[in-house]
């Protein structure tokens, strides 16, 4: 990989230890992915926030570098483990809370926007088309590439952090213009957002860097997010193309058989003890829609709703949170279904959700069973 004189100087340590480390990460990532050079990026979105996932080693690392590090570009942040406003209600131990707060403080000290959201594409203005960004959250990277006309690879927590500190990323893979090697023909009629999640999960498994989808109708916001969340969960793929005729690529079908395989892998229970909505977190449009659909109804069991703090504040002003609380919902910001420490297998046997991403992590990380249903089915079956 070619470096400029200034980049070489940073790599030698002439701009301090933190910059040296950041450039070492970019060079190692660049060499690993056959990048020819580094290019400027305008926005970094970091993962590696939840104490549940990064543990003591991550907390210590961030605490150590935050003393001297400052981000150079706009930098947003993934969810953490809890909502500060309601953490006392969830029986988390003091160690978890203090370590999580230390992580929060480290990021804030580095100048990161404490957005605690996995849907940066819904709560920040989108830069102009073709802008290079560096997103570590998989669903956000896929959404940015596929629906927001931005360019990013599926970054790691470390490469995105290095990009935030330097304002640069290795120029490789999806940052360049390349067509998909594989087309998936969508064969399922009348798909729900759950169907799109399963399509995404399937695409992530069979695809490499990007996948072309044909036969797909117009998707609403909920379905687009579900598609991206599904893909991010199952593989390394980070982009959808939507071309009807791509003669260059190999073609496979997504039909009943393929869909049922995904469903049978992720649906492990006939019913759930509680319901979760939001993985990816819900945006304002979904919250508003939910408030309308729940009018005159209330949940028969606990229902946890995860959204960014910014969305919760707007929804409160618009009167939606009051309506959702009236329908029995617990609304949590700053955290997400995915990798939450708030749902534990000693308290819960199974969770009902419409999220493929949530289902995967609830089963594999939290060890609880999952009952998959579309939002319409959840409202039909679980409210009165």
């Amino acid at each position, binding site marked *: 990989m070619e470096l400029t004189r200034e980049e070489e100087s940073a790599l030698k340590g002439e701009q301090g230890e933190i910059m040296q480390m950041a450039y070492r990460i970019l060079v*190692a*990532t660049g*060499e690993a992915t056959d990048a020819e050079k580094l290019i400027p990026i305008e926005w970094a979105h970091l993962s590696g926030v939840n104490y549940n996932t*990064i543990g003591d*080693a991550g907390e210590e690392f961030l605490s150590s570098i935050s003393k001297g590090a400052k981000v150079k570009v706009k930098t947003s942040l993934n969810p953490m483990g809890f909502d500060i406003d309601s953490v006392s209600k969830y029986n988390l131990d003091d160690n978890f809370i203090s370590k999580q707060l230390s992580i929060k403080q480290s990021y804030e000290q580095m100048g990161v926007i404490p957005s605690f959201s996995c849907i940066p594409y819904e709560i920040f203005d989108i830069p102009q088309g073709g802008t290079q960004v560096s997103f570590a959250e998989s669903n956000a990277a896929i959404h940015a590439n596929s629906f927001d006309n931005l360019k990013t690879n599926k970054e790691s927590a470390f*490469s995105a952090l290095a990009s935030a500190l330097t304002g640069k990323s290795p120029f490789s893979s999806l940052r360049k213009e390349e067509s998909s090697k594989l087309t998936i023909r969508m064969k399922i009629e009348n798909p729900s957002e759950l169907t799109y999640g399963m399509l995404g999960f399937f695409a992530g498994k069979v695809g490499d860097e990007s996948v072309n989808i044909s036969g797909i109708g117009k998707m609403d916001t909920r379905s687009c997010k579900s598609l991206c969340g599904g893909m991010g969960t199952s593989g390394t793929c980070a982009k959808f193309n939507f071309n009807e005729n791509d003669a260059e690529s190999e073609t496979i079908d997504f039909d009943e058989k393929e869909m049922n395989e995904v469903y049978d892998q992720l649906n492990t229970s006939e019913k759930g003890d509680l319901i979760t909505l939001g993985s990816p977190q819900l945006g304002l449009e979904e919250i508003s829609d939910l408030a309308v659909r729940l009018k005159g109804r209330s949940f028969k069991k606990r229902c946890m709703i995860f959204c960014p703090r910014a969305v919760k504040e707007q929804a409160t002003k618009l009167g939606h949170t009051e309506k959702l609380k009236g329908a029995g919902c617990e609304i949590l910001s700053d955290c997400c279904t995915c990798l939450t420490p708030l749902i534990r297998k000693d308290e819960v046997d199974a969770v009902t959700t419409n999220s493929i991403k949530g289902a995967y992590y609830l089963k594999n990380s939290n060890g609880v069973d999952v009952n998959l249903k579309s939002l319409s089915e959840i409202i039909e079956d679980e409210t009165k």
Partner: protein
Amino acid sequence: MKKILVKGKAKGKILKSSKPINFLGTVDKKTSIINDEHHDLFKKSLKDTILVFPYGIGSSVGAYTIYSIKSNNSAPLAMICEKVDLTVATGCALANIPLVTVSKEEFSSLENGKNILLDTESSNPITFLE
């Protein structure tokens, strides 16, 4: 040599494994002792070795483990792999541990217990020492 992921120089004895290493799950972050009884390096410490193994597996959070063993002075002096993986690459970058990948033939020639000098700036990066 195929790729230089993290530059540097190190002299030491090879500790070789034929199995991939999951840093998050199986390496003690203080002592760097492998605690997976199914691994061929079970109970061995990685401290001050030239660690030769095929590639890393498991969560990318394993990079923090590599940083931790370095902070606890129990890290390898260098790592040599057959394939690149981003977890080991970023972990070595965080911790400033030289990392290169080598061809299959070179990998086979790097036998356990041999002393070598690795210098990524040299035209002959790997030298076997007596």
